Structures are given as structure tokens and as C-alpha cells.
């Protein structure tokens, strides 16, 4: 079936929805001539019929994981095998970002993918899936996605059939058959076997064609560093199962890392001290990363000092008699005096040699990575291992884009094919890539969105989303997975491989290409294919380990790591956040996802430390003017305690101009300061305050509510809410967690409520495991149809997330004034959602009984009974109830609305993304976490029909399933042997706000920290409760009368 949106007339048309498009005369005409039957169905807003057609045409899957490769429109008169309408089916697939695949399981209802989960069988997921993966559903159904090919000439953009673009490309390629010298391909990093094959075919046809690969956020420095040290590019893997001591130099291995899910799972497993031990994690970094927030010791250093610290560590290790290459040691002579902690880390590393890992982040120079290779080798063991990294011939991404820009500049290339990516937006500012691209005679951009790069190309071709395409991709450890489509391309999008195939005159579709490649690489055994589809991984395809041999010339390498700061001025750090390199800018779930540390939504800001802010006389929301190398940028300041002094972090990915209705104009484009010479760290920036201010939208720490008494109270209260003890304290006194706050005698005057013969659902959230990555927040949003409200509503404090991550700052000294010392700042994080109180304060105040208790102990919300008095919200001590102040999915301040009265309808395609199991709430009702009651019901019904008990782990809440750290346990508290019941009895378990006697079903397990020189804290256990003594023992007895 050709795409529904192709326009034969080729006239310039723009539309914003399928609905709108469906009404254009051109489309009607086209439809009537092509599909007389369909025309009738497409005329109205019959979503049901539309779905049936769409579903029937492309979702006729056979056995699980196997889709009917023929693409016919068939009525649903006869039910296909294994398909019951309304019963979801899960398929394994894989997404790919920056050449690294993540294995996923996707739930599909009637042909619509609805929810993304991690694939537990995939080595890089282990069941977890981060926010970026979760948010793919919104991207798939984004009404701003490009729906058709466009040709751009001097006169503007014209909608054309994709075939016209392919014909133009085919002609250009044919003209260069057997040479290809004037043909260049710029691809995103990709591990796709299909694309590699297509590339080989193209290169065979046009041997002189140039193939470039570019990623703005690249791990090329590690590649370069390993090449320096060992002679070949390697990919380092850290085996956190064996790491007792982890020293990370600016590496955000829990968050901004291709294998973050698996890293988090393994790291977190060693943070609970179940066997009395836990890993110890040192983080040396400039910006405050999520990984740093979880460290036992974190040292904030200026970016230029980080590699020096690494070298100082090398020197200290040498001093501690760790055997390092002699010529490396020779280079460590005249280092500046190391801070005391370096020696302590070295001692700790030495003591744990064989079970220690030194990690270096992708922002650090290749030389630093090279030194890390040598240090890890010297420490021995199997903690850090290596596999081969891609194509050793490939130049670095920065070199690639620079070379291509040069070729374009000199006119040596006149056909450019850009496969994905958005280089016009992401290329270093000094290259002025957009202007140079315009010099190419034919430029074709294959992408999901008609974006900045498309606007500079002569052709834009819509790409297939990864949920719409066949592919074979490789994970971080090299494991191959089949990328299986969940839905036929909504707009006839192509994959990069398909585009190349077409340009060579081929006609094969993705399935044929994939199946052929699979047969070629892994054998044509049908069983194997089916198993690979079903499992989501192709067994035994992980990359072989490489044992590195140090061959580097340290006298050349080490000076590279000692690159000194550019003297005067501030240092800039270009960092990725939730929008990644900007590709997710139009994804409202991610835009509205609070940043784990700053809690910022919808904007980026210059992150700086309180001291730097004081030096600059800057307060939050003041606009800064930053200038580096003659490039200027203004953006608002955000004060982040714990950020290194003298440095400023600039998150990338914002300020898009052609992202779509959601992402355009949100934040500031910091790529404009980023040059090919210093893409990650820049020095010598001048920063000054301007007179402007800009209102940032945060979901916590609202500026106006701050006061001196309040700040002190927050600082004092946080340790009781988010409890944390040191390992030694915990071991010395198992009840240390309980002692952190005085518990009062709680009386149940009318006896406990019995829940006879019923399940008693409960949850535990292990704060020792939780890293704060916020995957649960997005998972909850996707599962429960939670609306996005837009920036203005966030400023108004009306975010709708049922799950949030509370974040408080504390200090290693328990002195509030030390929040100004970046290395003493610690972060406490805690996911908070409805805790399902047995004595729920919300229930008794509702005048219409819209929130009541069910027999299994859930505090349920009856949406259609709710009249919206909001009394429950007031009386909820956790403030987890969320109110629909407007028709939130398309309210007046929704990012897609544009005015106070705009009560616009949703685009039809957006409606496809709703979870049909969950009510879409109307204006004026309260909502909150339900423990995913729809998931409970589904399993309960199935178990009842099969007359069996519900097994442990059979019901997973969305947050639990997404959690890469496995921090959340859920289940029936009656089953004493189940994990959730055991954890609720744990010594670390505590109830937040226990003295209100509201008896929550969710308990938290206190976090642990494992500092070096840990000694048991006496008395109250924590030893970090400055405000504690004010309350006193004798006084607490009286508070009982209040509760």
C-alpha cells in the first residue's frame, strides 16, 4: 500500500493532521482514483474504521513475533490466528541510537504499538528501558512527523511523491556508476547489518563515493584513546558485577551511556549490601551528573583539572606500588600537587586491585582514555574488558563532518545523501555546514521530521520510525537483534538501507533485505529466525573480547592529557540531557520530563555553581551572555549546587527551529558555541550578566517559595524523608534507619482493617538502588495516558506526572552552608507516587466518595464520580494527586495549542498512542497513581480464568518494569516469601511520614553510602541530622496528640 499521504499533483501543500489532509481536494481525488472503497472510509472522523483499515492492512501478524509479510487490505471478517481484538501482543524489537541497539519489548493493541519495555533477554537492557526508549511511542505518533517527500527549489518546498525523490537520486547515482567521486553519503552512526550491506553494494557500484558517519555526541574519544594505547580502537565495557571500587572521571555511566540500563542494573545490585558489602564509587567531574549524584565520594573539579587528576591518580598508584608502564610513569613528573583525596583513592584502588575500574567519560580527551586503559590494565582483573569498536578505518566523527564540509565548500561533491541525523543543526558552528550543504546540486535527507537539515536539502524523504522497520542491529556488547516493525510505515517512510537500495535501482523492501541478510549471516533455518524474532536477540552474536596489549607511546600521549586550561575565563561543558543531541526536541514527554538534578523542563539553561553565580552576581533566571571564540549566546542561568566552580554546563539539543510544534523555540541552541576544535569542553569563555531575565520552569524548588526559614527546614527535613545511612552504621546497628526519625506510638482505635482472603498489593522502592534516572516517570506517563501540560502550566505548578523524583541537596558535613562547596554537596533522590495508604486521608474528605478503598487495599480513584473539589489533593501529605485543570491533552496551554481559547481536538494520529486499558481523563477530575490497576486486573482475570494463583513477578507496574536499577518491587504482601513482602520487613524499610498513621502500602528502603573511612555513627544512627536536637526527645511525645 502506498503511503496515504502521497500527493500525485506535487503541489505545495502543508497540513498539520491526517484529518486535515484527508479533506484536501487533491487527496480526495487521489484517494478516489486509487482506493474507491477507502475513500468512503477516510471521509469522516471514523477513528474506529480508520484503525480497522490500518490495523488490518499491516498488523496481520502470525505467530508471535512474525508478521505477515504480504501487505494487503483484508477485512477483519475472519480473525487471524493468535489474535483476539483488544488483547495486547508483545513483540521483541530493537531501537538504535548512535549505532548502538537497545533490545525492547513492545506491547501492541490491535496493531498499534502502545508501550515500550526493555527486553530482559537483551544484554544491554536486562529488562530496563530508559526515558528515551519509553518516549518512542510519542515520537511514532507525532503529528509533526514528515508525511511525504518534499522537493525544495529556489521557489520553496513542494510536496512530491517519494518515488520522484528516488528517481532523482537514482539518476544521480547512475550518472556516477563505477566512479561515484562526486557522491557523498553522510550517515548517522549505525551498527545495522542491513545498512552495512547496502553500503557495500553502493560502494561496489560507486567505488569512489565517500561515506561519512557523524554523531554530534560521539564516543570517539574513547575510540581514539584505546587506539593510542593499544593500536586499535576498542570499546571498553565495565563489569560492575566485579567492581568493588569504581573511579569515574566525568563518565556518566548510569545515564548518558549506550549501556546505561545494563550498567545501572549491575551497579545497583551492588549498592544494597545484602551480603554486607557494596561497591565504592568515586566520581570526579565538573558538571553534576546523575552518576555523580549516586557516588559515595564526589569531587567537583574544573574540566581542565579532571585529566590532571587522572594523571595524579596514576602517579599516586605508582607511588602505591601499582605497576605502570615505565615510560608512562616517566611522564608523570612535574604534576601539580594532588589533592588529598587522590592518594586515598589510589590506596583504595590498590587495595582492591583486580576488582577496581577506572572509567573516563566521552568528553575527556583521547589521551585520558589511553591513560585509563593503562591504569585498568595495571589494576588487573576482569572488571574492564574490551571488544573491537566498529570499523577501524573510520575517521572520527568530527573529522568526518569537517572533511565533508570541506568537500562541499570546494564543490568536490554534488550529490549528498544524508541518512538520518540533523547535521545542519548539530554540526559544529565553525563549519557552517548548512550554508555549505546548499552548494550540493542534489542533496537528499532521509529523516523522520522535515527538519533544519531537510530545509537545506533539495529533497526530503520521510524515514521509517524504528517501530516501522525491519533491521538487524547490534547492541553495545555486539549482540545482534532483529528490529521488527510493530506497524507498517504510517507515512511510507523508508529505512536508510531501503533508500540506498532504491537508489541503486532495487525494489526490495526492508523485510526481504533483512531476511536475506539474516539467512546470509546466521543461516536460513526458519526456527532460528523465529527464535531470534521471538527472543529479540540472536543468540551467540556478542562481540568477542579483545585483550589489549599496551603499545602506546606515552611520551606523546600524556602531554595530550595534560592540556591545560585556556588561562583566563570560564570553562564550558557541552552536555547531553534528556533531548539527547536534540533529536527528541519535539517529544513532549521528554521536554516535560524534569531533569533529574535541576528539575528543569522545557528549557535548557547555563548550569553554574552557587560560587560562580555569586562571582557573576547572577541569580536564577537571569540571562547570561556567554562569548567564546567570538561566538555569542544568551541563555538563562540555573544555579546547581555541586557544579564545579568556574565552569558552566550548556545542555545541547534545545532551541530547535524546525523540530515541530512542540520543540520549536524551546530553550537555546547551544550548538552555536560548539566548534569542531573543542566540541565537548571549551575554555576561555567570557560570561556576563545581562539585564534580562527569563522564567525557567521547574517542578521543584520553585523560586518564589524560597525563604531563609524554609531553606533551613528543607535541609533539616530531607534526611527524615529520604533516609540514608552509611554502610558501617548500618552494619553496626541494623535498626539505624529506623532511628533516623523518632517513631511515635501509632494507635488504630477501631482495630486494623482486615483484607480477608484478598490480595494485599504493596510496593517497595529501594533507594539504595534507585539512581534517579526518571525512566519510571516516562514509563508511567506512557502507560497511564498522562497528559503533557506545557511550560506555562509547569510554571503554574501543574505538572501531571503521577510519579515524580524528589531531589534534595544535603552535604557531607550536614552543615547547610557547605552547599556552597561543590565537593561537599550530595543529592538525595526518591521516586514518589501514590503510596496507597490504608488510612487514606484523601478518602475521608471527598464529599462524593470519588476516591475509595478497594478490597485489595488499593486507594482507587473513580474518575466518573469525581467532581473536582480538590480537597483530596490538599489533604494528601505526599501531594501525589494530580488535577486536570483543563482538558489537558489539548488544553489552552498545551504546547500544541496556541491561545487561551484553543480547545483544539487531538490529531487522529495522536489518539492512536493512547493505552486503551486506561481512561483518558477529562477536565476537572483528580487522578493519581493506581499501582497500574489495569495491569493488576489483566493478570487477576487471567489467573482466575485459569484457576491458579498469581505468581511472583507476574504483575509488574509500569515503573517497576521500566526501572533499569530494579529498585521497585511490587506484589502481594500476603505472600511472605515474595520479594516485596520480604523487603517490607527489611531493616532498611521505612515509611515516609509514618507518624501520620496513614499506613501506606509503599515502603522505602533507605539508601546506603559507602564512604572510605566509614565509621558507625552513634546515637541516632545517621549522625547527619543537624536540626534533630532542636526537636528533642521529650518534645516528640507531644506530637502524638497531633497525629
Amino acid at each position: 500500500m502506498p503511503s496515504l499521504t502521497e500527493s500525485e499533483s506535487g503541489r505545495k501543500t502543508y497540513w498539520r493532521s491526517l484529518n486535515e489532509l484527508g479533506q484536501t481536494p487533491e487527496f480526495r481525488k487521489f484517494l478516489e482514483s486509487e482506493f474507491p472503497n477507502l475513500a468512503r472510509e477516510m471521509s469522516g472522523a471514523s477513528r474506529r474504521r480508520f484503525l480497522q483499515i490500518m490495523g488490518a492492512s499491516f498488523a496481520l501478524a502470525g505467530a508471535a513475533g512474525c508478521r505477515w509479510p504480504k501487505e494487503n487490505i483484508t477485512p477483519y471478517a475472519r480473525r487471524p490466528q493468535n489474535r483476539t481484538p483488544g488483547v495486547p501482543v508483545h513483540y521483541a524489537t530493537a531501537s538504535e541510537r548512535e549505532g548502538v541497539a537497545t533490545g525492547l519489548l513492545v506491547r501492541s493493541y490491535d496493531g498499534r504499538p502502545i508501550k515500550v519495555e526493555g527486553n530482559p533477554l537483551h544484554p544491554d537492557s536486562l529488562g530496563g528501558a530508559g526515558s528515551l526508549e519509553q518516549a518512542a511511542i510519542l515520537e511514532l505518533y507525532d503529528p509533526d512527523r514528515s508525511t511525504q517527500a518534499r522537493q525544495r527549489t529556489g521557489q520553496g518546498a513542494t510536496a512530491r511523491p517519494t518515488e520522484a525523490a528516488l528517481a532523482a537520486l537514482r539518476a544521480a547515482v547512475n550518472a556516477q556508476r563505477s566512479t561515484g567521486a562526486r557522491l557523498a553519503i553522510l550517515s548517522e552512526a549505525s551498527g545495522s547489518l542491513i545498512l552495512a550491506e547496502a553500503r557495500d553494494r553502493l560502494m561496489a557500484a560507486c567505488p569512489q563515493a565517500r561515506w561519512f558517519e557523524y554523531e554530534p555526541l560521539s564516543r570517539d574519544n574513547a575510540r581514539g584513546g584505546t587506539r593510542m594505547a593499544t593500536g586499535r580502537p576498542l570499546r571498553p565495557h565495565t563489569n560492575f558485577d566485579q567492581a568493588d571500587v569504581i573511579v569515574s572521571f566525568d563518565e556518566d555511566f548510569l545515564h548518558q551511556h549506550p549501556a546505561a540500563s545494563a550498567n545501572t542494573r549491575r551497579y545497583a545490585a551492588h549498592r544494597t549490601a545484602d551480603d554486607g558489602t557494596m561497591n565504592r564509587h568515586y566520581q570526579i567531574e565538573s558538571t553534576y551528573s546523575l552518576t555523580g549524584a549516586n557516588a559515595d565520594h564526589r569531587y567537583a573539579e574544573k574540566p581542565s583539572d579532571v585529566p590532571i587528576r587522572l594523571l595524579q591518580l596514576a602517579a599516586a598508584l605508582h607511588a602505591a606500588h601499582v605497576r605502570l608502564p615505565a615510560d608512562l610513569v616517566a611522564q608523570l613528573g612535574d604534576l601539580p600537587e594532588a589533592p588529598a583525596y587522590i592518594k586515598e583513592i589510589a590506596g583504595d584502588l590498590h587495595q582492591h586491585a583486580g576488582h577496581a575500574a577506572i572509567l573516563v567519560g566521552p568528553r575527556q580527551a583521547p589521551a585520558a582514555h589511553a591513560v585509563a586503559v593503562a591504569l585498568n590494565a595495571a589494576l588487573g582483573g576482569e572488571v574492564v574488558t574490551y571488544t573491537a569498536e566498529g570499523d577501524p578505518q573510520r575517521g572520527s566523527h568530527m573529522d568526518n563532518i569537517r572533511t565533508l564540509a570541506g568537500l562541499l565548500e570546494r564543490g568536490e561533491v554534488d550529490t549528498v545523501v544524508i541518512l538520518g541525523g540533523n547535521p545542519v543543526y548539530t554540526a559544529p558552528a565553525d563549519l557552517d555546514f548548512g550554508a555549505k550543504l546548499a552548494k550540493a546540486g542534489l542533496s537528499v535527507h532521509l529523516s523522520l521530521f522535515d527538519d533544519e537539515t531537510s530545509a537545506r536539502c533539495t529533497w526530503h524523504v520521510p524515514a521509517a520510525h524504528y517501530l516501522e522497520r525491519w533491521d538487524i542491529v547490534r547492541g553495545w556488547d555486539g549482540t545482534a537483534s532483529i528490529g521488527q516493525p510493530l506497524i507498517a510505515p504510517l507515512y511510507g517512510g523508508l529505512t536508510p538501507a531501503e533508500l540506498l537500495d532504491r537508489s541503486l535501482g532495487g525494489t526490495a523492501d526492508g523485510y526481504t533485505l533483512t531476511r536475506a541478510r539474516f539467512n546470509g549471516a546466521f543461516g536460513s533455518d526458519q526456527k532460528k529466525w523465529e527464535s531470534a524474532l521471538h527472543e529479540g536477540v540472536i543468540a551467540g552474536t556478542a562481540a568477542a573480547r579483545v585483550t589489549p596489549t599496551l603499545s602506546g607511546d606515552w611520551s606523546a600521549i600524556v602531554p595530550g592529557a595534560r592540556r591545560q586550561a585556556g588561562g583566563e575565563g570560564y570553562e564550558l561543558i557541552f552536555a547531553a540531557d534528556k533531548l539527547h543531541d536534540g533529536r527528541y526536541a519535539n517529544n513532549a514527554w521528554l521536554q516535560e520530563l524534569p531533569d533529574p538534578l535541576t528539575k528543569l523542563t522545557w528549557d535548557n539553561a547555563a548550569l553554574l555553581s552557587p560560587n560562580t553565580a555569586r562571582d557573576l552576581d547572577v541569580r536564577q533566571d537571569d540571562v547570561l551572555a556567554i562569548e567564546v571564540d567570538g561566538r555569542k549566546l544568551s541563555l538563562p542561568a540555573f544555579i546547581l549546587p555541586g557544579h564545579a566552580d568556574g565552569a558552566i554546563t550548556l545542555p545541547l539539543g534545545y532551541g530547535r527551529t524546525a523540530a515541530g510544534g512542540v520543540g520549536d523555540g524551546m530553550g537555546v541552541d547551544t550548538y552555536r558555541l560548539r566548534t569542531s576544535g573543542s566540541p565537548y569542553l571549551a575554555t576561555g569563555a567570557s560570561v556576563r550578566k545581562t539585564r534580562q531575565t527569563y522564567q525557567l520552569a521547574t517542578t521543584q524548588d520553585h523560586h518564589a517559595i524560597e525563604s531563609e526559614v524554609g531553606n533551613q527546614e528543607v535541609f533539616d527535613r530531607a534526611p527524615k524523608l529520604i533516609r540514608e545511612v552509611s554502610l558501617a552504621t548500618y552494619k553496626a546497628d541494623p535498626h539505624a534507619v529506623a532511628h533516623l526519625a523518632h517513631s511515635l506510638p501509632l494507635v488504630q482505635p477501631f482495630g486494623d482493617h482486615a483484607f480477608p482472603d484478598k490480595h494485599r498489593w504493596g510496593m517497595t522502592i529501594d533507594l539504595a538502588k534507585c539512581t534517579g534516572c526518571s525512566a519510571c516517570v516516562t514509563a508511567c506517563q506512557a502507560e497511564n495516558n498522562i497528559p503533557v501540560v506545557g511550560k506555562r502550566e509547569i510554571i503554574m505548578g501543574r505538572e501531571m506526572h503521577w510519579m515524580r523524583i524528589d531531589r534534595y541537596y544535603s552535604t557531607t558535613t550536614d552543615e547547610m552552608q557547605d552547599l556552597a562547596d561543590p565537593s561537599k554537596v550530595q543529592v538525595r533522590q526518591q521516586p514518589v507516587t501514590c503510596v496507597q495508604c490504608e488510612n487514606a486521608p484523601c478518602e475521608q474528605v471527598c464529599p462524593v466518595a470519588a476516591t475509595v478503598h478497594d478490597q485489595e487495599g488499593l486507594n482507587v480513584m473513580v474518575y466518573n464520580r469525581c467532581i473536582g473539589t480538590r480537597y483530596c489533593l490538599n489533604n494528601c501529605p505526599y501531594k501525589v494527586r494530580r488535577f486536570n485543570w483543563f482538558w489537558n491533552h489539548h488544553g489552552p496551554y498545551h504546547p500544541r495549542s496556541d491561545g487561551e481559547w484553543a480547545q483544539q481536538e487531538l490529531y487522529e494520529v495522536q489518539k492512536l498512542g493512547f493505552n486503551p486499558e486506561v481512561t483518558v481523563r477529562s477536565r476537572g477530575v483528580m487522578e493519581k497513581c493506581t499501582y497500574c490497576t489495569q495491569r493488576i486486573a489483566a493478570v487477576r482475570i487471567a489467573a482466575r480464568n485459569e484457576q491458579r494463583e498469581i505468581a511472583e513477578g507476574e504483575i509488574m507496574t509500569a515503573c517497576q518494569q521500566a526501572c533499569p536499577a530494579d529498585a521497585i518491587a511490587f506484589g502481594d504482601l500476603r505472600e511472605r516469601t515474595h520479594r516485596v513482602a520480604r523487603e517490607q520487613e527489611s531493616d532498611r524499610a521505612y515509611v515516609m511520614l509514618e507518624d501520620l498513621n496513614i499506613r501506606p502500602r509503599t515502603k522505602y528502603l533507605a539508601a546506603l553510602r559507602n564512604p572510605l573511612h566509614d565509621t558507625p555513627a552513634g546515637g541516632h544512627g545517621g549522625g547527619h541530622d543537624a536540626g534533630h536536637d532542636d526537636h528533642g526527645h521529650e518534645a516528640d511525645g507531644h506530637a502524638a496528640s497531633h497525629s
Partner: protein
Amino acid sequence: MAVTVGEYDNTFETPGKRAPLVVGDHDFASVTEAVCNVNERPMREMPLIWYVLFGIAVALTGVLFGSIGYLFLTGVGVWGVKNPAGWGFAIINFVFWVGIGHAGTLISAILFLFRQTWRTAINRFAEAMTIFAVICALIFPGIHVGRVWVVYWMLPLPNQMAMWPQFRSPLLWDVFAVNTYFTVSLLFWYVGLIPDLATLRDRASGFRKWAYGLFALGWTGAARHWHRYERAYLILAALSTPLVLSVHSVVSFDFAVSQVPGWHTTIFPPYFVAGAIFSGFAMVLTLAIPTRALFNMKDIITLRHIENMNKIILLTGTLVGYAYAMEFFIAWYGQNPNEKFIFIARAFGPYAWAYWTMISCNVIFPQLFWFKAIRTNIAITFVISLLVNVGMWFERYVIVITSLSQDFLPSSWDYYWPTTLDWLTFIGSFGLFFTLFLLFIRFLPMIAIAEIKGVMPQARAGHDQADGGH
């Protein structure tokens, strides 16, 4: 018609002799004439200021209903309410107006039962003010819900879902308390009006005669009528008396029964009742002072009346001040850290401006009424009555907003800002209140004519001394 003597000081106590409650050379006929004149004079003879005020009030009423219309079309999000502060201006205004509505019934019922005869000069329009204030109050809980089209689910109506309201919720108690109060106050007011409506009927002709006659229920002034009337009035007074105490106690339960720090305090019921009477009397003064000047009622609403009301304001203002102090004491003595914090934060936190506005208006300025010179100074009284109104509104602001803004988990703390719509709705409610009040002044006797005659010396002709010993 009697001569108006202007500001005659009848506040001096002469031993053995009652101070006159109607001054000037009034007889029964001249009192009737003086009161009915406002209702009977041709429209063009109404003072210009009445027209101006009425125009403004009607315009503001339009603003009120316009704002409500916009609210209904768009959603509660047009207000400043937000995640920690689920309640904002609507609930503040509700409590404020219910509080205003307290003086009327107190004057009609409690002062009646206590034989405080000076109440007769002010009870009629204090009661009218009560009715109008409660009307304004009742608007807010109705419109503040998220789905206004099903707001009737708060009422215990039989329905096909067999769903009753949830009787443990203080909001439901509110529905009963305020509606009962409104019904009884309306009835009380109407019963008191019957003899005066008959007077107007007898003096009128044409449509007015018919209209007043309709509502006068055939009153002829027969002794039997008077007998029944007095009995009914006494019974209604007895019925209303507990309501004066109950309605604001129940309103305070909205807060006291919840567990929000700053709300969850046992002192709330008496404290709210005292505050309500305080604000109610301030509003009576705010209305009475211009009205008596405008319509030559200084003989009937005399300086003594004003001084008496000032004394009540002094008393209730002091009670309110005591309650403020006691809240702090209990927060310290109770050692509940959350409660302790919220009271410190009220005084020194981000809302300190609102708190100190409240303290100065409610506690400091009314203390000036210890001085008789100030109690009997009309201008200062008027200013203080306005300040008390402001202060009592801010009291509700402080209670509702500061407590909700900074409760248990600091992560959800947020500052509450009212939006333009909040202000328009609030100001609009004053428009409605004054529209109703100005219409009342024009069309109904603002003084209880029949009753006031009972406290004039002529009524006691012949047994002056016997009665004076009361």
C-alpha cells in the same frame, strides 16, 4: 417630619436614665416617614451617589458572571490554584463572605434574645447584608469544583446510581450548614419584614401596592397577628442562635478536620466564629456609616449604635488576636515539627507580607477602640471597619494559602499567585453584593419600622419607669 439633629452624642450614660435610641424630635409618624421615604421617593430623587454606586455594582456583577462564564468554558486552571494549593481565592472568598454573613443573624437572634434593644435600628439591613453575603458565599463552592455540571452530586439526591454523598467529608457538612443558615436567615429576615411591608403597602398605590401586598401576606396589624408574629419571631431567633455558632464552626472543619499543618488545630471553631462576628460587624459599619449619612438616618442609627458595634469589634478582635497567639503557643508546645514550621513560616516566610497585613488589620488597629474618642469618631470607625474587612480576608488567605503551600514534603512546595481571573471574580462578588444591597435600600425598608417604634419613648408612655429598670 421631624428635625434631624445631625450627630447627636447619645453615648453618655446617665445613671437611672436610659439613653435614647432614637434621637431628634421623632414621633411614630416621622419615623415611618423617614424610613419609607427612601422607598417611596421618585427614582429621580434618589441621590446621585446611589446611581453611581449602583452602576459600578451592576458592572462588577457583570464582571463576576463574565468571569464565571469564562471559567466554565475553560476550566478551573484559569485561576491560580495549583498542585500544593488546591484551594485558592474561591475558598478564601467563600469563608470571607460566610464570615460577613454572621453579623446579621447574631444581631437578629442573639441580641434579640438578650434584649439588646439597640439592635432594632440595625438589624434589618444587617440581616439583608447576611443574606446577600451568603449568596455571594454560596457561589464560590459551586463554581470552584472541576466539573461544575455535576456539582449537584454534593446534595443527597436520590439517583439511579444509588450513590449518596460521603458523609465523612467536611465539605458535605458545609453544604448542609450553609444552606440551613441561608434558609433560616432568609426566613427570619422575611418574617421581620412582614409588618413593614404592610406599612409600605398601605402607603402605596398601583403596582407597588400589589407587590408589597403580595409579600405582606395580608397583614392587618391585628392583635392576633402581632401575637403570632412575636411568637414566630422568638422561635426563629431561638432556632438561629445555634446556627450562628454552628455555621462557621462547620466551615472551620473544612480545615480543622484535614491533616494539613496549620489547618489541623482544635481552636478553629471558636476562632472562626469570633472572626466571623468580627468581620460581620465591620461590614455592618462599613455599610451603615455611609447609608445613614446619605439617607438622613442619623437619628435612628445613632452614635450610640456605632459605639456599641465598635465595642463588639474590640471584643471579637481581641478574641481573634488571642486565637492567633494561641496557635503559635500550641505549635510550640505541641512540638509537631511540621506545625511548628508552618507558623514560623507564616510570620517570617514568603507570605510574611500577608501575615503581617492580617495582624495589623485584625489585632492592632481594632485595639484603638479602647478609646472612647475613637469609638465615637465616625471617620476613624469607618476606616477601621474597612481595615478589619481587609484583615479578615487576609486571615483566610493566610490560613488557606500558607498552609497548603508548605506542607509535609518540601518537594511540592510552591508559591501561590492569584491570576487576573481570580481578582475579577473576587471583585465581581462585591459587585453582586452591592447590587443586591443597593436594591434593598431602594425597595425595602432598611430600618425595622415596627420594631424601632417599640424602643422609642412614646412606646413606653405611662410606664416609662417600670420598663427602665431593665
